[in-house]
């Protein structure tokens, strides 16, 4: 116990960093991913093409490479970004591709008659997406979206390799300083992640039950 007391500040800061990465990255991913999904079903061909290109690029690139590109690649074109904002950007941009695909599967699951009825009323494409299709799509994709977001929380550990002092970065750091306490360090880090993921999973389950709709 003394070990945790001695290192409480480190654990707390690292936990808060991981939490911030998760919240900010998740927010960026949800907003951008939903926008991309709207593009992918839009009647405007260039928008569809752009979104498809985006998704295929980020979905098929390792996250580490995305980090590398943003933190070391962008400065080559005079766009310098700090380690933490860079990490948020990398995580958000990467996860948005997966969010897009989850939301798109939800859009495809909404009966085509729903969008037809909306269009027949005179709603524009954007209005029918916002008012009718997306609210129903989100309800069906809570479980897969939850998977994407939980994976993202764990993916924030990549930021450790790019000078962000989040939870996983404690592993080498604390083990080097306290060689005998390897197991305690591991437990501390795992508990830190679980403090984020377990309540999230629980909350997602609640959301799933609350928004379920009769068909």
């Amino acid at each position, binding site marked *: 116990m003394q070990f945790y007391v001695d290192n409480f500040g480190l654990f707390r800061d690292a936990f808060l960093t991981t939490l911030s990465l998760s919240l900010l990255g998740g927010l960026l991913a949800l907003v951008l991913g939903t926008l991309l999904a709207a593009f992918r079903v839009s009647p405007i061909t260039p928008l569809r093409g752009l979104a498809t290109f985006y998704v295929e690029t980020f979905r098929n690139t390792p996250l580490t490479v995305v980090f590398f590109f943003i933190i070391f690649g962008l400065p080559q074109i005079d766009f310098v970004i700090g380690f933490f904002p860079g990490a948020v950007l990398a995580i958000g941009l990467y996860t948005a591709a997966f969010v897009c695909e989850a939301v798109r599967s939800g859009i495809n699951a909404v009966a085509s*008659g729903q969008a037809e009825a909306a*269009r*027949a009323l*005179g709603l*524009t494409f954007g209005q029918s997406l916002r008012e*009718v299709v997306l609210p129903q799509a989100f309800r069906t994709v809570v479980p897969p979206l939850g998977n994407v977001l939980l994976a993202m929380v764990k993916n924030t550990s990549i930021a450790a390799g790019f000078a962000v002092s989040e939870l996983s970065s404690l592993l080498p750091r604390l083990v080097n300083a306290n060689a005998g306490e390897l197991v305690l360090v591991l437990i501390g880090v795992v508990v830190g992640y679980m403090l984020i993921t377990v309540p999230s999973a629980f909350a997602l389950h609640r959301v799933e039950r609350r928004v379920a709709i009769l068909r």
Partner: protein
Amino acid sequence: MTSRSNGDPLVRLSGVNKWFGELHVLQDIDLSIDRGEVVVVIGPSGSGKSTLCRAINRLEAIEQGEITIDGQRLPEEGKELARLRSDVGMVFQSFNLFAHKTILENVTLGPIKVRRQSKADAEKRARELLERVGVAAQADKYPAQLSGGQQQRVAIARALAMDPKVMLFDEPTSALDPEMINEVLDVMTSLARDGMTMVVVTHEMGFARRAANRVVFMDGGRIVESADPETFFTTPQSARAKDFLSKILEH
């Protein structure tokens, strides 16, 4: 032919052609619908009658020809098309009520989002319309909690809330249990009496006789015959129509 016309026809299709791949589903369709006229479209399945109905508000795009509503050519896409559609009510075979919205919200969505009415005004009108179609008591329920007949009457109220110039009915009773068909037909009949311009694709010959000014018989993507109901049902001209009527009227 009825002569209710006051000026130009409300809906005019001229030289309309449409293909689904190789299939020529609409062939050289010419059809004019006057204000206040009730046109019932009948024909065997696959004859193109639903496609014709859906082409009028461009849920199906046509490849050739021209469709005008109230003198205005159907726009291709975008806001213009949305505006035109808002004047054309549509009732679907499968109701298509918005599953995540209450009955009241289903009816107020269009007036609020498209007509920019205040929520209070839209709700007041919606309750009147729900009263008119006999489902006022269900206003706060969700569509899945209603019977098919009730859902279809809500769908009619939803279309009416936009004060449409014309209403399209695409087989409105085909998905209903037999005992619910009449409650929907009654609402449609009263609409017809009130002078609503209607295009109705249906298999309900009783409704056609009772409410239609004109029956249009389609087969193989063409309009084969067009006559007032009495003439059509008693003395059909084409062999196809005679054959079709003999099959559906004998039981």
